[in-house]
C-alpha cells in the first residue's frame, strides 16, 4: 500500500503538450482509473508513474520519495511497481513459470521462495495448469493473466494497468473486470488503471479521472461522474446524452427551435446547454415536458430505443419496452423528463460531436 503524489506534472513532446498540470494524491489501496479518449494523455501519465517517461515539469512522489521530476528520474526497475501492458508483453522465449518468476529472479530470491510465490500467484490468476506452457500455446486471455501474474508476483507497491482488457473479447473482458477488482481487494494494493471504456471505469474504480486533451475534466466517484458531470464533455463521454441549447431565466428554460418550456430552479442563467440522458426520458401519451413525433424505434427486449423529433431536434430516448409500437409515426407524443443537467453554453456544438 502506497501513496502516490503527483504535483503539477506537465508533459510535452516538442511543442505539443500532452498532459497539463496534473495534480492529485492517490491514497493507500485506492483503485484509480484514468479515463479518456485516445490521445488524451492518460497513458503518458501512467508511463510517467512507471518511469518510462520523464515529466517536462512537476514532481511525482511514491510514499514521499521523489521519483520523477525534471531533473530526477528513478529508473523503472528501482520503483517496485507492477505493470500490465496493453500488448501483454509476455516474453515469447520463456514459459509461463519463467515469465512470472522473472521479477523474483531479478531480486535474487532463493529458489524455494520463487517456486512458492509463483505457484501462489498462478493460482490467483488461474494458470496453475499452464506453468510449463510457452506463450505461443496460450490464448489471449491466458497471456493477459500471465502478464497480470508477473506484475503481481513481487508484491509491488503499485499496480499499473494500461488498457489491459482492450484486446480481449467481450465476455472475457467482463469477467476479467471482476477478477482484477477481486485481486485488488484481496491484496489491498494501489491500482492505477488506464482505459477509454467507461463501463470498465464504472465497475472497478474508487475514483475516476476523466481526461481530455491533456486536461483533467473531473475527478470523482463513478456515481458522481455519471450523475453530476462537471461539464458537457464528461456528460457526453460517460454515458449517452442529448444536448439542447436554450436560455435560462426566471426559473424557466426556453429551448431553441422548440416551443416547449422547461421549468428549472437551478442557478445557471443566460445561454445554456441542457443535457438529458436518454434513459431519463419517458414516452407518454398526452401532456408532458416536451412534445414530438417518433422517427424510429428499435425493440431491444428490455427497452425501446427510439429517436423522437422535437421541433428541429432529434432526441434519443430509451423508454420502457411497453411503449414499442404503441404510437403511430404522425401521432404527437409527450416526453416526460425525470432528470436533466444544465451547463453554461460555451459556444461548442455538442450535437456535432455526438453524431
Amino acid at each position: 500500500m502506497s501513496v502516490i503524489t503527483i504535483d503539477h506534472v506537465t508533459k510535452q513532446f516538442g511543442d505539443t503538450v500532452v498532459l497539463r498540470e496534473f495534480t492529485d494524491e492517490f491514497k493507500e489501496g485506492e483503485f484509480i482509473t484514468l479515463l479518456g479518449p485516445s490521445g488524451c494523455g492518460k497513458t503518458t501519465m501512467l508511463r510517467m508513474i512507471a518511469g518510462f517517461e520523464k515529466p517536462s515539469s512537476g514532481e511525482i512522489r511514491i510514499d514521499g520519495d521523489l521519483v520523477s521530476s525534471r531533473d530526477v528520474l528513478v529508473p523503472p526497475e528501482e520503483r517496485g511497481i507492477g505493470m500490465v501492458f496493453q500488448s501483454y508483453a509476455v516474453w515469447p522465449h520463456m514459459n509461463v513459470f519463467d515469465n512470472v518468476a522473472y521479477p523474483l529472479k531479478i531480486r535474487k530470491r532463493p529458489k524455494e521462495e520463487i517456486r512458492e510465490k509463483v505457484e501462489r500467484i498462478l493460482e490467483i490468476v488461474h494458470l496453475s495448469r499452464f506453468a510449463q506452457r510457452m506463450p505461443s500455446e496460450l490464448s489471449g486471455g491466458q497471456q493477459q493473466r500471465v502478464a497480470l501474474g508477473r506484475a503481481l508476483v513481487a508484491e509491488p507497491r503499485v499496480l499499473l494497468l494500461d488498457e489491459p482488457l482492450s484486446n480481449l473479447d467481450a465476455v472475457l473482458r467482463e469477467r476479467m473486470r471482476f477478477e482484477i477488482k477481486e485481486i485488488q481487494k484481496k491484496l489491498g494494493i494501489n491500482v492505477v488503471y488506464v482505459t477509454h471504456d467507461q463501463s470498465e471505469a464504472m465497475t472497478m474504480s474508487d475514483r475516476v479521472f476523466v481526461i481530455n486533451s491533456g486536461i483533467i475534466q473531473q475527478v470523482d466517484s463513478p456515481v458522481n461522474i455519471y450523475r453530476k458531470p462537471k461539464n458537457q464533455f464528461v456528460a457526453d463521454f460517460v454515458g449517452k446524452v442529448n444536448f439542447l441549447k436554450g436560455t435560462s431565466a426566471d426559473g424557466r428554460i426556453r429551448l431553441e427551435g422548440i416551443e416547449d418550456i422547461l421549468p428549472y430552479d437551478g442557478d445557471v442563467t443566460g445561454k445554456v446547454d441542457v443535457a438529458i440522458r436518454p434513459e431519463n426520458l419517458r414516452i407518454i401519451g398526452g401532456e408532458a415536458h416536451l412534445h414530438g413525433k417518433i422517427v424510429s424505434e428499435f425493440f431491444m427486449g428490455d427497452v425501446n430505443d427510439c429517436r423522437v423529433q422535437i421541433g428541429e431536434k432529434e432526441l434519443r430516448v430509451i423508454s420502457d419496452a411497453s411503449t414499442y409500437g404503441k404510437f403511430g409515426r404522425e401521432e404527437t407524443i409527450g416526453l416526460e423528463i425525470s432528470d436533466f443537467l444544465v451547463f453554461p453554453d460555451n459556444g461548442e456544438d455538442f450535437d456535432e460531436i455526438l453524431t
Partner: protein
Amino acid sequence: MMKKFTFDIKWILIAGIIGFLLVFQVFPLVYLLFRAFFATGHFSLESFARIYSYALNWTCLKNTLFTALLSMVFGVLIAFPLAWLVGRTNLHGRRIFRTLFVMTYMVPPYVGAMAWLRLLNPSVGTLNVFLQKIFGLAGMPFNIYTTGGLVWVLTTFYYPYAFITISRAMEKMDPSLEEASRISGASPLKTLFTVTIPLMLPSIAAAGLLVFVAAASCYGIPSIIGAPGKIYTVTTRIVDYVYVGSQQGLTDATVLAVFLMLLAMVILYVSNFVIGKKDYITVSGKSVRPAVVDLGRWNLPITILVGAFAFIVVILPFATVFMTSFTVNMGKSLFAAGNMTTKYWGIIFSRKSIIKSFRNSVFSALWAATLGMIVCVIMAYLLKRTNVKGKAVPDFLITVGSGTPSVVIALALIMTMSGRFGINIYNTMAILVVAYMIKYMLMGMRTVVSAISQISPSLEEAAQISGAGWLRRMKDVVLPLTAPSVVAGWFLIFMPCFYELTMSNLLYSDNTKTLGVELYLYQTYHSQQTASALAAAILILVAVLNILMNRLTKGKFSI
C-alpha cells in the same frame, strides 16, 4: 465465364515465368551438378577426387571457409552493438551513423578492396606510412596482402548486411517486452542480456549466416587483394579455371562451384526454414516510441569510439578512392607539389572503350531491372492474393537464385547457354541480363511482396464488385498503390547490376564489356588512378540514384 478467363491468364503468366526460370536457372544449375558427378557419363566422384588432390585447392577451400567464418564472427560482433547503440540509445549523431553504416551496402565491394590496398600496402600504404611516422616504427605495421587483410576488408564490407538485418529486427520488436523487464526490476543492461538478446538470437544467427555466405561467395575483394598476396579462395580459383578455357578446366571449375553452391544452399535452408521458424519477433499493433536507453556519462566516450570506427571503415576508404583518382605519383602525398591532376577523370570521360562499357552497363542493368520487376510484380501478386496452384514455386526459385553465389550462376550459364543445348546467348548482352535477373530479382520481389501485404484485400474486392477483371484490378488498384515499392524495387535491382563485377567478368565479350569489368582491368593491369576515378564516378552515380529513388518514392525508400 469471366472467372474462367481470368484464371487462364494467371495460369499462363505463372507458366511463362516458371518456364523462364526453369530454362535459365534450374536447368543450368542442375546441369552443373550433373556435370560434377557424371563427368564421365556415369556417376562417379572421380572429378572430386582429382580436384581435391591438389594441395592448392584445399588451401582455397580452407581460405574461403576461414575468412568467411571470421568475417561472420567479427561482422556480428560489430553489427549488434552498433545496431543497438544506433537504434536503442541516445547516442549522439545516431542518424548520421545509421546512414554511414548502411551506405556501404550499396557500394560495390571491390571499391573497398581498392581503397584498403592503397591504405595498407606493405611498402607505400598511406595509413601504414602515417602510422609508421607517428609511432616511429621500424617497419610497416600492416600488410593488406594477408589472410588477416582479406578478413578485414571482407568484414568492413559485409558487416552492414548484419547491421541492417539486426536493426530491422530491433525496430520490429515490441518495446513493451523490454519495458516489462525494466518494471520487473531489471536494469537496462540486465534487460539487454535476459530479454533483448535472447529474443533477437534468431535474427542475429540469420544475420551472421548472411555475412558468411556473402563473404564466401565474394569475388571482387579476394581477386583484388588475394591475388597479389597469393591468397586464393574458391571464387578466384573458379575464375582462374574458367580462364584456362579447356574442358578439363571447366570441369574443375564446376566441381569447386558445386561445393560453393551446396554450401550456400545449406545455409539458405538453415536460415530460412530452421531459424525462420524460431523467429519470436512480433510486430506490435500499437506504434510506441521504442524505449531509449540513456547512456549517461558514457555517451561521449562511446560516441567518439563509434565515430572513430565510422571514420576508419566508411569515410577513410571512400576518401582514399577519391584522392587516388587525383594523384599523379602514388608514392607521394596528393598535396605534394605538382602531384595533383584531373587527367584520370579526363580519361574516364573521353576514352571510347570506357564510354562503351558505361553504355553496356546501363543497358544491361536497365533490361534486368525492367524485366525483373515485371516478373516480381506478377509473382508477388499471385503469391499474396490468389490461390493458384504452384504460386510459391517462382518465389522459391527466385530465393534460391539470389542465394546462389554469382560465380556459380555465371559458370552454369557459360556451360549451358553457349549453343550446346540449342540456346546460344554466350557473348551477348542477353546472357548478362539473365544472370543479373537470377541474382538480383529477390530484392524487387521482397519489396513488392511487403507492399502488397499491406494493402487491404477489400480495396481490390471493391473494384471486383464494380466489375473490374483481374488485369483491370492490377492496373487500377494494385499498381497505383504499390507504385513507390515498384519504383524502389526497380532501383534496388538496377544499382547492383550497374556495377556488377563477378558475373560480368566471366560472361563479358569484347562487345559487352561492362563498367565493373573495365574498372577491374584498369585496377589490375593498367592504372589504379583511372580505376579510382571510375570507382569514384560509380559512387557518385549510386548516390545520385539513391537520392532519385528517395524522391520518386516520396521518402519511403532510400538505400
